[in-house]
């Protein structure tokens, strides 16, 4: 600690020790040590790649590959940077970015698995081979974030984490709860309906569009070379998954899958009833008829009665009986926020960005100060009318513009979080009746952000592809970086570490580090342990050829990068003392978390 006085250091350490219930000596020793870069397990030291040789048909296993060093990107700076910055830089904030976790209750009736039969090369995410393993992957990603709790660039402590939407896959109460509980720390059995049994297309022979781990010989995946995995489904839905929880406060925004049915439109009463019912479509035929009957059920009591009789007596082909579960109910719009308020104080904060005021007002976006010099804005870019892509409401746009102007005048750095990115912020669907105002799309949104140098980054997800874009101002005077992460559900199942750094030469850098989840790169046959199943999930995802998994990794320019830009204001106005005080708080929190673990 160089900037902070001895007296303040002792007072701060004592207060933090008391606040977290730690010994003063332990905290004093930890906080007095200078920040030190130690090797933490990230893609800097090891990557995970597909084997260049197939093992069965077209199927490939995964292997550890060489690490990838940071690549400096100068697009927003407009010139090469000073080589001396490495010795002068100081950390402003170190964060984790999660997105598109897509926790899936794979046995839920109101899923569109069977739609994949109609267009397998288009509806690639209707029924993935690894659908039953999403909780295992999230627990493994939590472990990975915890392992990387000191920055690989500066040694700074992790201060916060963000989840930029699509945390649940189908706005289900159960999926939402599993995701929140896994990030907060809990033990979860990723099962619904019947206890200790999997009921769904992956065991139904007529569902040839699905991967059948017990015997894939009759499905598309068997033909590709997917393995026979006896007992895998049972292990996935039976064994409890333990997640230690993130070691830092985390904050969430809405994704389209958190707020609309299958990420596409608001559900009606029939869909809500279907979600908690006891019938599930096994084939596209059955799904289509059930869908049509569901639509009709809104109009006629007689139709509803006919539907009930035909369904209950098994007269609809392509429909299977499953164990109903009320916990599968689809959430109402504000219930997603309410679920985040039903959380423990640690890692916190209660609400994870949402407050009771959000629930009361229905405003689904928020702002917060991560420290005295960095403000973050969590937007809701989801379109409730139709379509998976997003837009920004005029109300939100105006609010954000006012907030960014304030950041500019107050000398605060600003980051914008949303689910959708600039390539998917083009949804034109507006409600025919009712309020909502005009929608703002990517071009106008980006132009607005470019007006405010204080806005240094837009962090998002949605496409499941690692992507980094430079949004340079037309006059060449800088701009901001757009950082999109891959997902937890599709290959490469990567998320990101992000660190803001003051280079103390009139520039700043945003370091982005791609983060694999902690499970072994190569799955060992028969390993159905918690981490084994997470490893298997990644391997299955890598072979989901319909997704073209080779592209979702992005290029090296989208992964481990140092993104430079001109400092938006004189960053020396941020005193070292203040930074160190913030880092002390973060270190004490991590110490407390480690001691509880």
């Amino acid at each position: 600690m160089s900037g902070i006085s001895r007296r303040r250091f002792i007072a701060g350490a004592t207060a933090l020790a008391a606040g977290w219930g730690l010994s003063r000596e332990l905290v004093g020793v930890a906080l007095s040590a200078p920040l030190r870069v130690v090797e933490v397990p990230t893609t800097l030291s090891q990557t995970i790649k597909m084997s260049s040789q197939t093992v069965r048909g077209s199927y490939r296993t995964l292997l550890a590959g060489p690490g990838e060093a940071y690549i400096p990107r100068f697009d927003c700076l407009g010139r090469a940077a000073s080589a001396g910055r490495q010795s002068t830089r100081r950390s402003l904030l170190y964060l984790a970015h999660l997105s598109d976790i897509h926790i899936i209750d794979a046995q839920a009736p109101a899923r569109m698995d069977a739609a994949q039969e109609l267009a397998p090369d288009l509806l690639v995410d209707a029924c993935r081979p690894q659908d039953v393993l999403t909780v295992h992957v999230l627990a493994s990603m939590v472990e990975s974030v915890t392992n990387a709790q000191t920055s690989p660039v500066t040694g700074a402590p992790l201060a916060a984490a963000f989840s930029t939407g699509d945390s649940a896959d189908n706005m289900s109460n159960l999926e939402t709860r599993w995701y929140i509980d896994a990030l907060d720390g809990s033990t979860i059995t990723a099962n619904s309906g019947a206890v200790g049994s999997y009921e769904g297309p992956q065991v139904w022979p007529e569902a040839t569009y699905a991967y059948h781990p017990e015997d894939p010989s009759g499905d598309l995946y068997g033909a590709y070379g997917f393995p026979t995995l006896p007992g895998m489904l049972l292990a996935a839905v039976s064994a409890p998954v333990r997640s230690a929880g993130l070691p830092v406060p985390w904050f969430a925004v809405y994704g389209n899958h958190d707020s609309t049915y299958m990420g596409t439109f608001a559900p009606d009463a029939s869909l809500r009833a279907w979600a908690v019912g006891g019938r599930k479509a096994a084939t596209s035929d059955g799904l289509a008829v059930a869908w049509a009957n569901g639509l009709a059920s809104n109009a006629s009591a007689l139709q509803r009665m006919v539907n009930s009789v035909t369904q209950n007596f098994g007269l609809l082909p392509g429909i299977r009986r499953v164990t109903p579960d009320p916990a599968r109910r689809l959430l109402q719009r504000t219930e997603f926020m309410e679920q985040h308020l039903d959380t423990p104080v640690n890692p916190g904060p209660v609400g994870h960005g949402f407050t009771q005021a959000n629930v009361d007002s229905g405003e689904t976006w928020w702002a917060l100060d991560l420290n005295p010099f960095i403000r973050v804005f969590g937007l809701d870019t989801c379109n409730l009318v139709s379509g998976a892509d997003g837009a920004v409401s005029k109300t939100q746009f105006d609010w954000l513009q006012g907030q960014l102007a304030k950041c500019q005048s107050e000398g605060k750095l600003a980051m914008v979080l949303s689910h959708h990115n600039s390539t998917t912020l083009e949804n034109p669907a507006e409600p025919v009746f009712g309020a909502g105002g005009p929608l703002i799309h990517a071009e106008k949104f980006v132009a607005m952000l470019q007006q405010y140098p204080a806005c240094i980054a837009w962090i998002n997800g949605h496409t499941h592809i690692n992507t980094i874009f430079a949004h340079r101002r037309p006059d060449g005077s800088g701009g901001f970086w757009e950082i999109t992460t891959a997902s937890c559900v599709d290959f490469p199942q990567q998320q990101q570490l992000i660190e803001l750094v003051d280079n103390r030469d009139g520039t700043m850098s945003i370091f982005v580090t791609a983060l694999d989840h902690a499970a072994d790169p190569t799955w060992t046959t028969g390993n159905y342990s918690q981490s084994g199943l997470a490893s298997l999930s990644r391997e299955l995802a890598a072979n989901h050829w319909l997704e073209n998994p080779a592209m979702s990794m992005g290029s090296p320019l989208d992964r481990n990068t140092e993104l430079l830009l001109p400092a938006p204001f004189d960053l020396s106005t941020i005193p070292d003392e203040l930074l160190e005080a913030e880092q002390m708080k973060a270190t004490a929190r991590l110490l407390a978390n480690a001691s509880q673990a």
Partner: protein
Amino acid sequence: MRRRIAVAVFAGAILVSGCSQIDSLDPGQVFNHFPIATLTIAVGDVLVAESVPILVAPTCTQGPTSFTCNGTTIADEAITVSASITEPQVMTIQVGAQVIYDGSVQDVLDAASQVAP
């Protein structure tokens, strides 16, 4: 008949739904079933593999008959990419006057995502 109608209506409904990569399948930007992002990624793979010192990474747009991408090097040389809209999926990457890659987009992606056992 009723089932056929239901299937047809349903198929239409799901074709407007979806998420992940499908969302970015803007018909105007599809590169042989892949979004234009695929081309951008493959270009990035080649530039990094060839240690091209990039000042501005290429961004890609679609013209009437081809995709083009433009960027610059630290030495202010132009990075230009052209790729056909039609099959086969090939691209040509040039740095200044020198062609550094001329071949398949998917081959680049596959090579970048694989490692020998």
